[in-house]
């Protein structure tokens, strides 16, 4: 009789115990979070790195530790006169060796400059000492999206299959003033062990690379029982789409360009064309919302095997990667069910795939 009474008392005490603030220490390397499945609500927290390598350095005067971030292993904040600011990030990335011209052009795009040819981009690089290892450095000045004069100084060095990036970015005058300190910092860096490199965020197109469309023969298929049937166009590769997608295809273009076609369905009108188009515009391309009149003006109706489909096209920047992106969307209602087809990816690749995508949607049999 005593045992249950004591147990009950313990349990009741547990019930009455209020949750409280907890304090604990975790090893620094544990702060870097293991990757999350794409689509998980927590992906906004960013993909971490597999292991924090033991990086040591001499911190220049006036720099404040910012700690590890989404992809970086460490970072610093710098404050200058007139509220100017700059940041330093140290990030290891895999499989970047030999893609230096691409990196140069990536940062040029970020500050609103035109791309250079690979040869011209390679000429922007000059040698630099990074912890005793030979590295390369380049700097780019331009404007931020809000018109502010900014500068980026990037140094990189290869260690095995990993390339370590050191990026100083911020207000132009402050970055110029801090460059000598940055170079001194680079010399002081020591990496004790090679860590598993950071992965690109989910959905980030591979940087560089020479993948080309695969020449797979077209194959009719019905991806799920009871669903529509279609012919998968050449060069499209079906991949698992997760629980919210009916089907998903990826398309690889020249120069590492990538696009994806998502097929989803919803009962009824699926929230309506306006809401879905604006979801694509605002949440995925960072564009302003359209009014109903805009949608009517910008969309076109196409005859399909199953009736009609409404197509709409828009271009902006991929909210997840910041890279230019185009969405070609189509919706059609069949037997009280609305089907959404979305081609999203590199603008040139999307334009090249426009006709194929339209044909695909037109020929789906429900």
């Amino acid at each position, binding site marked *: *009789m005593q045992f*249950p009474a004591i*147990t*009950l008392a313990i*349990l009741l005490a*547990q*019930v009455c115990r*209020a*949750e*409280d*603030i*907890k*304090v*604990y*220490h*975790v*090893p*620094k390397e*544990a*702060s870097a*979070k*293991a*990757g*999350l*499945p*794409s*689509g*998980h*609500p*927590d992906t*906004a*927290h960013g993909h971490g*790195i*597999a*292991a924090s390598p033991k990086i040591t350095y001499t911190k220049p005067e006036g720099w*404040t*530790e*910012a*700690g*590890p971030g*989404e992809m970086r292993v460490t*970072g610093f*904040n710098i404050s200058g006169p007139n509220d100017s600011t700059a940041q330093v990030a140290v990030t290891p990335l895999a499989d970047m060796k030999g893609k230096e011209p691409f990196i140069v052009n990536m940062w040029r795009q970020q500050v609103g400059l035109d791309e250079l040819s690979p040869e011209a981009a390679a000429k922007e690089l000059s040698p630099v000492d990074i912890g005793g290892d030979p590295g390369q450095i380049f700097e780019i000045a331009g404007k931020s999206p809000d018109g502010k004069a900014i500068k980026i100084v990037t140094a990189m060095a290869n260690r095995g299959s990993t390339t370590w990036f050191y990026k100083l970015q911020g207000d132009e005058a402050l970055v110029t003033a801090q460059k000598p300190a940055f170079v001194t910092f680079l010399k002081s860096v020591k990496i004790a062990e090679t860590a*598993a490199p950071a*992965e690109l965020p*989910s*959905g980030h197109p591979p940087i560089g690379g020479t993948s080309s469309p695969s020449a797979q023969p077209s194959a009719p298929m019905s991806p799920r029982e009871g669903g529509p049937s279609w012919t998968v166009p050449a060069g499209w590769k079906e*991949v*698992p*789409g*997760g*629980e*919210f997608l009916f089907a998903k295809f990826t398309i690889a273009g020249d120069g590492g360009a990538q696009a994806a076609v998502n097929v989803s369905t919803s009962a009824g009108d699926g929230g309506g064309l306006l809401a879905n188009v*604006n979801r694509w515009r*605002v*949440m995925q391309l*960072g564009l*302003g*919302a359209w009014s109903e009149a805009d949608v009517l003006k910008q969309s076109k109706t196409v005859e399909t095997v199953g009736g009609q489909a409404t197509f709409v096209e828009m271009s902006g920047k991929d*909210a997840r990667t910041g890279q230019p992106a185009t969405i070609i969307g189509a919706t059609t209602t069949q037997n009280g069910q609305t089907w959404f087809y979305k081609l999203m990816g590199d603008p040139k690749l999307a334009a090249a795939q426009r006709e194929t995508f339209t044909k695909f949607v037109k020929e789906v049999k429900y």
Partner: protein
Amino acid sequence: MLEATYKFFTSVRLAVVLLACGLILVFWGTIAQVKLGLYQAQNEFFRSLFIYWHPAGSSLRIPIFPGGYLVGGLLLVNLFAAHLRYYKPGLKRLGIAMIHLGVVLLLLGQFATDMLSTESYMRIREGSYSNFSESNSRWELAVVDVSGATDDKVVAIPESLLAKGGELAHPEMPFKLRVKTYFVNSDLRGQPFQGFEPVQADNSTGQQIWWRSLPKTTTMDTRDVPSGIVELIEPAGRSQAILVSGNLAPLQMTAGDKAYQLALRPTRYYKPFRLHLLDFRFDRYAGTDTPKNFSSRVRLERADKGEDREVTIRMNEPLRYAGETFFQADWDKTDEKGTVLQVVDNPGWLTPYFACVLVAAGMIWQFMTHLIGFAAKRKSP
């Protein structure tokens, strides 16, 4: 009066009524999951003293039916009281006592599971590791001091305190927090939409954000994403209103000469070991997409005990370690190179087994006693 109360609590009628209530409760709670979702239905029907009716347009809560805790609690009292009243010690009735003790253990075990167990998820990509799991339903505001050379110091404020609002202080925090707004579920947008309001916060996320509060989610395939505005009050009295959200990356900030991160994130449960995902396998039957097996080959590394071994976790072969059970639960569907392990910490997990053994042994004892008695009678002339 006392005698009447005693009789009431020891009556078989009460046991029958309570068992009937239990049946209704299970049926009703199961049906209610369609509308309320699993977690809310569990809380409202089974983890409660009463089921309440909320008249439309009113904040009243009117109890209309006993909840799981009341039915279970009364059954427990009834069982004890009846035992006290009717039980006569002796080998002949030992079986009855064992059966009753088994049922008591079952009830207490379930109560202990409700109170003490935690369920969380560990997500690992191939080639990387994790030493923490995350809750799917609980959130915390983490103030992380990242200025240490080897360790990060985490001050974790549970969501329940944020939802109450008001001021929060802790000696390990470099500032006080005043919760100005807290939405248990929310939607954030980068553009104005009907029903959305501009967020009035000082932290520069680089753009204006609009938000709206959402009701708690009721489906199993979505989860709440809370957001709120917390005012950080420095010792000098300066303050700034900061938007925190489960949909935003951690905010990097400095206080004094230290760097901090502020993140509203799923509640984390850190482990004294780590699991390194070596390989995730999703085997299908040849020539089809029909799943055959999911498995994760992990390396379990625990420095303080010198452990370093490989374990394969399969769908029906969980890893039991350090009081927790790691089940193969899900995987990264983008490329099948990541695993999701469900981590269950249930101190009372053995009680149902003990309870069932006790009940079975009691029934065997009781049956054998009667059988032997009956056989003996038949033998005697």
